[in-house]
């Protein structure tokens, strides 16, 4: 397999960007990534979850390219809900590995704040089974809450143990210039915040943010971190038929494949960004990536041994939905080389991008 390298990237601070259209917001960050890379691209992969449901814009890539005056190159939108970012990076990787292209870009963009917060719940619920889950009012939050309750019970934790996740993420976010929340919080803040779906509270739910991130990927160039492997897996079992509720099946499968293809083990991971759209998913992702033993993530967190989400995760950086996976890729790549973030203590990093409640996961291994 030929190598694929991250040769340029740019991030937009996550937030509420009421003043910009979705295509322009993507074009702005893509333009910066292209300038950072200093190469021309031959194709564009767009990761977006809300472009249709919020902005009613299909074929988004064409409008992004229009804004940049880049004509003729192909543009593909890849959608896997809030896991669109990892899926789009994977599709871009295949396009490069096929030999068809030398350099392509992935841009992730979403603008959930173009609608009001109750409508955001409607939009985010589109990752659920539309006929048998969304119809009844279920959301990613309700199902995450059920999983959280079962996880905490099974492994002998209290809610306070889970609340430590939000505290840690806010600590990390305070150091990330692109994060939406850049302030520390105390355990009491988390514990006294309102219930969103008990046992989960406000601080267990990552804020939906407007965000855009771009990475330029090239084949056979060695001036940047290397994407060692990508793997995507679907969990085709409906929520009510799951065997276990304290594990992420899609991640378990994708992680096994990605580690194997990269030839590394969890022990080699020095930087990791996981999909903590809900705190419990972050905890399960740490275990799914093998960075803690099953049921052991919160104990590891308590011991202070968790080197994940140095960005602050979705919890503090913000959940930019389809753009999130692209943020994560750039964050891990930059952590490995010590750009914008403190340099990671090792040569390998890993990204976990998830769509829906354990419906699909992408795992990307990045190495120096």
């Amino acid at each position: 397999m030929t190598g694929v390298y991250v040769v340029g990237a740019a991030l937009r601070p996550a937030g509420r960007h009421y003043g910009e259209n979705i295509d322009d917001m993507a074009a702005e960050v893509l333009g910066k990534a292209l300038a950072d890379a200093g190469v021309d691209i031959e194709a564009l992969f767009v990761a977006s979850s809300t472009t249709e449901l919020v902005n009613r814009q299909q074929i988004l890539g064409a409008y992004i390219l229009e804004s940049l005056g880049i004509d003729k190159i192909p543009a593909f939108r890849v959608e896997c809900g809030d896991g669109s970012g990892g899926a789009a990076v994977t599709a871009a990787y295949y396009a490069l590995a096929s030999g068809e292209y030398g350099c392509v870009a992935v841009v992730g963009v979403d603008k959930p704040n173009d609608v009001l917060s109750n409508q955001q719940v409607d939009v985010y619920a589109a990752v659920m089974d539309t006929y048998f889950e969304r119809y009844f009012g279920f959301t990613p939050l309700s199902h995450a809450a059920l999983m959280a309750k079962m996880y905490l019970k099974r492994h002998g934790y209290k809610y306070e143990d889970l609340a430590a996740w939000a505290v840690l993420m806010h600590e990390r976010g305070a150091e990330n210039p692109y994060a939406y929340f850049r302030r520390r919080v105390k355990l009491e803040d988390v514990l006294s915040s309102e219930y969103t779906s008990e046992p989960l509270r406000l601080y267990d739910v990552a804020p939906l943010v407007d965000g855009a991130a771009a990475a330029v990927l090239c084949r056979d160039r060695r001036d940047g971190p290397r994407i060692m492997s990508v793997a995507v897996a679907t969990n085709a079992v409906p929520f009510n038929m799951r065997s276990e509720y304290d594990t992420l099946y899609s991640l378990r499968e994708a992680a096994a494949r990605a580690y194997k293809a990269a030839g590394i083990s969890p022990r080699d991971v020095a930087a990791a960004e996981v999909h903590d759209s809900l705190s419990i998913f972050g905890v399960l992702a740490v275990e799914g990536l093998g960075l803690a033993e099953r049921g052991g993530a919160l104990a590891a967190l308590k011991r202070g041994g968790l080197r994940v989400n140095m960005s602050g995760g979705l919890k503090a950086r913000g959940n930019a939905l389809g753009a999130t996976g692209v943020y994560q890729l750039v964050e891990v790549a930059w952590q490995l080389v010590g750009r914008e973030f403190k340099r990671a203590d090792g040569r390998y990093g890993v990204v976990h991008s998830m769509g829906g409640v354990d419906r699909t996961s992408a795992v990307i291994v990045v190495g120096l």
Partner: protein
Amino acid sequence: MRHESVPMYWRNIPQYYRLVAKRCRQCGAVYFPPALRCRCGSAELEDYDELPHEGRLVEYTVLYQVGTDFLKQKPLIVGLVELNGGVRAVGQIVDAQPDRLAPGTRVELVFRRVAVDGRHGLIMYGYKFRPVQP
């Protein structure tokens, strides 16, 4: 934001009203939501409308952040239920006080209004669960 299109609601009425599932003729596995092919490989699945309407709560949550169609019903109690015989379903729990619920609570299927469609004025119904008074 609109909730459902009319055909989408109409065609799922057997499932929404009576929990009609699919059962594999080869191995007997039951699929709810209905599937087209069994994980055993067989494509011979038949309608199965004899799922028990009683069961026990496995776990539940009280959901406070709801979509626009559910604002008036907020909060929703959402429960994972194991029907007698072992098939599980997720449903709203109604006529219940959250602090009296617990894993193991006996529940039964009831038929209730789910939401009102803003555009069509269509009232949509479906199954929910309620605790069985002991």
